[in-house]
């Protein structure tokens, strides 16, 4: 069972000597929100985690465990009730182009063509036109969108739209890429081809990624490390390092290593659902 390394239980919070300076540090983050009825609900309960540089980190957990909320906190689209989030040495304070995000819902700007969508961030940041064109072309090619650069989002399939969303986020050259169940709404074949595409693009850029999913196969296929969360209130249950060699391929889901990791995570989540029942 070499593929699975349960790094630590959350209780043993001291991390071993980190291989690289952590790019993303989430420190004792807690999120409460008030419902319309005035009830206070605890969504995230003191989560701390470090994502080292250039790692593909995936958060899995039962639905409603606050994994998406955590991603919104990192994006700066919401504020934690307490605790802080650091990217490099800077504390996250509001959203910014250094944290690109791909959303679960389709968030392409429908009045802009594929090219103009990818260009959006560069324009806001006042990148000169010539440089802009070059960057946009590069990412359109990498995501296989070159032939569709003049199409409007309405004319694209769900998979194509998420490709544009990935290209759009990457064009800004963010320090970290946040992905909130980006393939959740796609059919399984499209989802597989998107996973392949994401793996290929990631191998090229080795950008730090924080990816949320409830699909365990997807998590193992993509991840260097997986953060398993508990049911609400979301706590970090275990950090699982996935040692399966790269480049990864879709048929690895049949490998014994892969299955071992999967069994381990399923076990963790099964307990979670049981915990939830009483």
């Amino acid at each position, binding site marked *: 069972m070499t593929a699975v390394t349960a790094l630590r239980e959350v209780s043993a919070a001291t991390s071993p000597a980190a291989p690289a300076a952590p790019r993303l540090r989430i420190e004792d983050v807690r999120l409460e929100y008030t419902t319309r009825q005035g009830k206070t609900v605890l969504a995230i309960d003191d989560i701390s985690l470090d994502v080292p540089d250039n790692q593909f980190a995936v958060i899995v957990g039962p639905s409603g465990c606050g994994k998406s909320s955590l991603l919104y906190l990192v*994006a*700066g*689209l919401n504020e934690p009730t307490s605790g802080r989030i650091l990217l490099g040495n800077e504390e996250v304070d*509001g*959203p*910014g*182009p250094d*944290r*690109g*995000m791909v*959303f679960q*819902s389709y*968030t392409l*700007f*429908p*009045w*802009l063509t594929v090219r103009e969508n990818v260009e*959006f*961030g560069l324009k*806001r*940041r006042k990148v000169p036109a010539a440089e802009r064109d070059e960057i946009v072309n590069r990412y359109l090619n990498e995501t296989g969108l070159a032939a569709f650069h003049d199409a*409007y*989002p*309405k004319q694209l399939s769900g998979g194509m739209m998420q490709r544009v*969303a990935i290209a*759009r*986020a990457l064009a*800004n050259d963010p320090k970290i890429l*946040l992905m909130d169940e980006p393939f959740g709404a796609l059919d399984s074949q499209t989802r597989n081809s998107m996973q392949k595409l994401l793996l290929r693009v990631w191998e090229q850029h080795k950008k730090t990624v924080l990816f949320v999913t409830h699909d365990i196969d997807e998590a193992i296929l993509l991840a260097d490390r997986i953060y398993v969360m508990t049911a609400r209130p979301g706590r970090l249950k275990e950090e699982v390092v996935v040692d399966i060699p790269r480049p990864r391929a879709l048929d690895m889901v049949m490998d014994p290593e892969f299955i071992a990791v999967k069994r381990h995570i399923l076990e963790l989540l099964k307990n979670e659902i049981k915990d939830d029942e009483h």
Partner: protein
Amino acid sequence: MRRVPARFETGDARMARKRSLVDLCLTPKAEIPTGLRFAVSTLVWLAVIGTWSVATYGGFMQEIFLPSPTAVIAAFFRLFEDGTLGQHIWASVQVVVVGFVISSVIAVPLGLLMGTFRVVQAGLEPLVNFIRYLPVTSFVPLFILWIGIGIEQRIMVIFFGTFFQQLVMIADVSRGVQKDLINASYTLGATRRDAVLHVLTPAAMPGVLDTLRVTMGWAWTYLVVAELVAASSGLGYISMKAMRGFQVDVIFLAIAVIGLLGLLTDLVFRLLRMRLVAWAN
């Protein structure tokens, strides 16, 4: 080679062959052939004009209450040739367009702000919702007292009738813009100003144009109200004058012209929407 069993034929293909037109017509939401659709539309028009013709030419209705189709057409040529029709159409169009444009120019940006910023909403919504339900007609005497019976008074009626409705509808449109669209722009480096100008405004455009199209229709309604009460020109005015002279044909003509003008403005807005926000079609 084995034949594919019949049960694997798709249901639709089998139905298309078997089902009669009657069956199609009775199925909820089923498409009917274009020819049939066209025929039915024409038939209804013919039925209306036919009934009208029978009632008038057949002598069932008195000419002074219900004019015959030829009488209305004759009235059209009479008023068209002496120039009065053109003059009154122009007077009405002026009032509607000026009132509608002034209203829209203020309501579109203000409505967008109202749907975007909770503080603007909190400030304006209670007041606007109160005024919105006041019948415009009840203000006409007040407007006459304040600004007389000139064109300004009629413009004011159009403005008052459309502005508050537009404001509420456009605020709704802007509230309906997907929040994650704005969130996405923030994660791409947009400022709040960028988000309003480059995301919220274009995203709201199709809804704004739809609102303008619908409220333009209402503007025509208020026009007649304004012209019936106090005016010396316009289609509502000639209608009122015709009533006093028992010229029912002219009343019919005025109604028909207003209907056609309404249809025309509707068409213009449809074209405008297709042109300006082609991405939404």
